[in-house]
């Protein structure tokens, strides 16, 4: 059931800019670092002479949490737009398909889009490293994969909340303003205690306690998704 709802979502979201966003975001982050390193190549290479790969990955990693926060906000809203704009929630939910399947399919869809972005980011980083003439024999593959996926696990609670807001609020301005506020606040995450979920995408990569943070992200994400699902199942649709 979820599979069929998912394939319907894939069709509905064709040409809506979601996949374009998923491609542009990692390319944009890498391009920013290409400019950052390219313009002051000698200076950056001198700072990170001991570990150029580590320096490159660290510079990229600062932008990943905020990109994921804003990305999940925008993808959720873009996806809800199909039903919100044409007021077709009634039509969709009148079909012989459970609301749980509709909601879960959309959740899986957002997760797939963001994962695709993270794969592109992990694949693009060594390409940039090659262009910057770094030593290709000791690429830190583990860090490169963690670079996108660890913060993604930490962002799941906020993603679940955004999906909930986007799917249930008719005025997307509220959902997006909320997401933007969260993203801006996340820039100050070093000032927050570690239990605040906004800090998790950062902690999930940099630590301390990476695996615990990832587990927290998954558990809280599951709880919020479940709450959203129950509300979506019970609410009146108009």
């Amino acid at each position, binding site marked *: 059931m979820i599979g069929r709802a998912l394939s319907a979502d894939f069709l509905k979201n064709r040409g809506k800019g979601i996949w374009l966003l998923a491609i542009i975001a990692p390319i944009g982050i890498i391009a920013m670092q290409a400019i950052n390193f390219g313009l002051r190549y000698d200076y950056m290479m001198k700072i990170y002479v001991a570990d150029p790969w580590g320096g490159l990955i660290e510079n990229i990693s600062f932008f990943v949490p905020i990109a994921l926060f804003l990305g999940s906000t925008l993808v959720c809203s*873009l996806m809800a*737009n199909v039903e919100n704009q044409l007021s077709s929630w009634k039509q969709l939910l009148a079909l012989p398909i459970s609301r749980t399947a509709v909601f879960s399919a959309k959740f899986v869809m957002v997760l797939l889009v963001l994962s695709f972005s993270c794969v592109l980011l992990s694949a693009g980083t060594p390409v940039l490293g090659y262009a910057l003439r770094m030593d290709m024999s000791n690429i830190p593959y583990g860090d490169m994969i963690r670079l996108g996926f660890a913060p993604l696990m930490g962002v799941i609670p906020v993603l679940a909340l955004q999906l909930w807001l986007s799917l249930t609020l008719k005025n997307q301005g509220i959902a997006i*303003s909320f997401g933007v506020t969260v993203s801006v606040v996340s820039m100050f995450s070093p000032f927050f205690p570690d239990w605040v979920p906004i800090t998790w995408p950062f902690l999930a990569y940099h630590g301390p306690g990476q695996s615990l943070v990832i587990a927290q992200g998954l558990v809280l994400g599951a709880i919020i998704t479940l709450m959203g699902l129950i509300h979506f199942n019970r609410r009146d649709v108009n």
Partner: protein
Amino acid sequence: MASYFRALSSEWLKLNGPILWIQIMLSPALSLLQGLFLSSENTVEQMPWHGLVGVMSTSHAVLFLPILTGILSAMVCRYEHAGGGWKQLLVMPVSRGAVYIAKFTMVGIALACIQLLFLGAVLIAGWYHGIETPLPWDMMTTSLLGGWAACLPLAALQLAVSTAWSSFAAPLALNVIFTIPNLLVANSETYGPYYPWAQPILAMLPSGQAGYGAFLVPFETLLFVVLSGFLLFFISGLFYFQRKEI
């Protein structure tokens, strides 16, 4: 002119409401928190107000203000995109130009409210820190008015894109993609002054505050970039809307 004011009052009716005011208050409220709790060590001894505005601008104008400009521009078009509203609006005896300029005026007014609330936030934070130096009004005026003016080119571009694309979030995605590089571009002396999305923060930081990067650029350069950007985006947006097939 009368038709413009009627269009403006109808835009006001459509937009006014608690949702608008919450959005207007978000950024000043956040920078107030930042001013209260994060700025105590950073506040400069001789020029405390300059230091305070410098610190509070970072959360306000680097990301929030450019993105909010996009959200507000999308909000003024939301009502028309849902359910064929453009057709209904444009069969009324108002010119398209008046409608477009009224929508733009609404965004400008909302941004001005944001800047006024930001002023309030600075005053409260200053009172909290017990700053006794008299308020340097010339610096405050330049910073607030400059930040407001620097948002107008972005508002013009976003309004053009929001009228063109029926999706609410798509124009915002475009805006966000260009706003995130601010985190790097604003530090660059060569490119910062010519990047439209970095103009709000460059205009809002009191000059001589952070002595590096694009923050040293003379006010005249920023004025030129902002003005030409505004004319380019606003005129092409208006031209497009006049000829758009609804």
